[in-house]
């Protein structure tokens, strides 16, 4: 089960994830990010406070935007990941490519 919530804070679009991202619902996450890109966002913060699990298919969604965001100068940050989910990002090496912050305030501070 995956639930998404879109909010705006400090001129950043915040996408909060609740539940789990796996192969069956990674498309929903992809569509949500696409919508935000289409709406012209320049700063995107993914809030992972309530994200319990992310599979490789979910990671594939973030990965697929890396180059696009670089070209379009959109910043994508991730904050407040649970240790378990953070571990998944770290093993894959995505933490080297996407800045990950312990909380939202730190994400804004950058």
């Amino acid at each position, binding site marked *: 089960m995956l639930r998404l919530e879109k909010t705006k804070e400090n001129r950043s679009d915040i996408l909060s994830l609740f539940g789990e991202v796996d192969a069956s619902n990674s498309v929903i996450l992809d569509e949500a990010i696409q919508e935000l890109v289409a709406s012209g966002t320049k700063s995107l913060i993914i809030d992972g406070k309530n994200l319990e699990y992310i599979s*490789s298919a979910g990671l594939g969604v973030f990965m697929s935007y890396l180059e696009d965001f670089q070209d379009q100068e959109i910043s994508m940050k991730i904050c407040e990941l649970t240790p378990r989910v953070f571990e998944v990002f770290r093993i894959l090496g995505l933490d080297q490519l996407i800045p990950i912050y312990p909380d939202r305030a730190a994400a804004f501070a950058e």
Partner: protein
Amino acid sequence: MVKLPSIHIGKLSVLLAILVWLALLFVDLVRLFGIINEMDSGISDEITWILEILFFFTLYGFYNYSVGKNIQGDFVNLLWRAASTGIFATGIALITELFYISMGDSKLATEPFLKNFFYHVNFALTAIFLISSALLWKHLILYQKNKKVVQQWQTFEFAMLLAMFFVFFNKNNFDYSFLFAMVILFAIIIVLSGNLKWIPYLTFKEKWKSLLFLFLMLVCTGYLFKRLLAYGEAEIYQVNLTDNLFLMALFMFIFTYALFSFLVTLFNLPTSSVFEQKLTEAINFQRLSQSIQPDDDEEQVLDILLDSCMSASYSDGAWIEINPEGQIEGINQLRFLDEATKEELSELIKTQKSAIGWASTDQPEMLQPLLVRLEHPRYESTLLIPLVINKVAIGRMVLCKEVRDGFNKEMVNIISTFVRQACIAVENHRLLNQAIQNERYQEELKIAQRVQKALLPAKLDHPDEFDICAFSNAADEVGGDYYDTYKLDENRYVLIIGDVSGKGTSAAFHMAQMKGVFQSLIQLNLSPAQFMIKANSALGKCLERNHFITASIFLINIAEQKICHSRAGHVPTLLYKAKEAKSDYLFSDGLGLGILRNKQYENHVQEETFAYESGDILVLITDGIVEAKNQKGQQFGFERIKSLVEIHHDKSPKEIQNQLIDSLHVFVGGDGMIEDDYSMMVVKFQNSVAQTNQ
């Protein structure tokens, strides 16, 4: 041995009948000779009676045999057989009568022997006619028999048997006992004659024919009866053969049943078309309910449906419309209407308020047939019937009649039933096709599974210095996990494990690509870091945008007892150190293949070299094992693997692997499913010195 020829019952009984009749004739003529010459011939009446009864029996035997053999439900044929026998007997009787009339008072006309001879001929023919007809009637009476009817018939046969011997008791006198017996037999005959179930099954034309034949039978029976009565009154025939209760009762039976049949058939004539209609409906219904064969098309069913409904309602025109989403292509069902008239009528229907509401309902399965009156010069009433398959209205059938309010409740009912049946047939046909399609897909997947299994190595390359085993399981039919070994030279071996993001068919294709890339690169003798860089650039070109691959590579040098390792975002490998009796995950920095598809990737690759000793264990895994969840949602996790390996470190790789898999299944729970592909490779280093010493 002499083989007896098989007895032919038919021929035998005919022969017997003829012999008995000749004997009867002879006896009577001898008696007559005696009387004329005033001599006592010594032949009593009883002999005649016995021969007469014998004659009846042989006739009964013959006809019972031949009727039972030749009649197969064709009632008109059966009636014709009875009638033709009657006509023949009547014809002979008429000729005899004419002969005597033309003779006038000549000597020949008064010749008693000749008269007696003709009397016997007429008697025989009449008996043949009566007995054969009675047996044909039996066939009609017992059509669609039940126990009651059979009992009635048996009672009648028994009574007739008694009537045959009544002559011994009664001495051929017309007295009260004779009358009494007649009344009883007549009662039985009336009851029997109520069994006329065969008549409704005649078609209109057959009924007319039957009426003709029955009429002929009535005439013949009447005439022959009159003739026999005339014989009975004449004194010249010494022993009366015909004033016999058996024959009289047979006359009664043949006549009564023919009369009943005649009247019932006559009164059935006007309603016979209804019965025929119902029969056609039943046959149509059966045709519709026979499920369509997988190769047939649905149009055929709709074809039958339209024809059945038209004949059931006497419609003057009809068509079937299929909605665009109805999934039946190229259907053009029009009956007795041209395209222009159909359009005209469609437009007229559209103007009707009830039809508009009817067409726009959102619950098609509740839709009832709709009757509409039209202001059309020719077609004044129409009936709209929805075609609902699987709760979706795929179209409608329109029936038109030239009369106002031409559809009654019965028609609407039967048409609704037809439509439902046809829709079920179409639905079943679709389900069947779907099932066949699914089976084909299953078959394809099985092939894919087999092909993919073959992509994993059947035999793992390894020297005596280390023992190795591996295992892989896909969550679906096919998966995205991969492992392999490669022998570079006598001292250097490569181990690889890889995992494609996602699972299922797409992952399986990428896994095949991964194998191709790895197998090519491995031969280039690259360092682990260089291997990953090249693999990234090769796979970056062929992976889908949101797919990546994680991999770990180990280059084992058994001469130096060293391992060079690089990790591309893959789940860290567990290394058990025998000397320290503890294990750790090899967590070097690294990025999954295909994530960065440019030169920048090189900045994210690391290479580590470490020494190993005998008893050390490497456990290569994929994330399916780490992330396997139990019913509480907890993951199997790194720690469990670690402690299990530490506990079982002294066992062989195969045992350690089995231990891990068993624990994993126990953890996940009896019927729990591991949602991802999972694989592992276990390597245990051995003391090569110790082995050489063995």
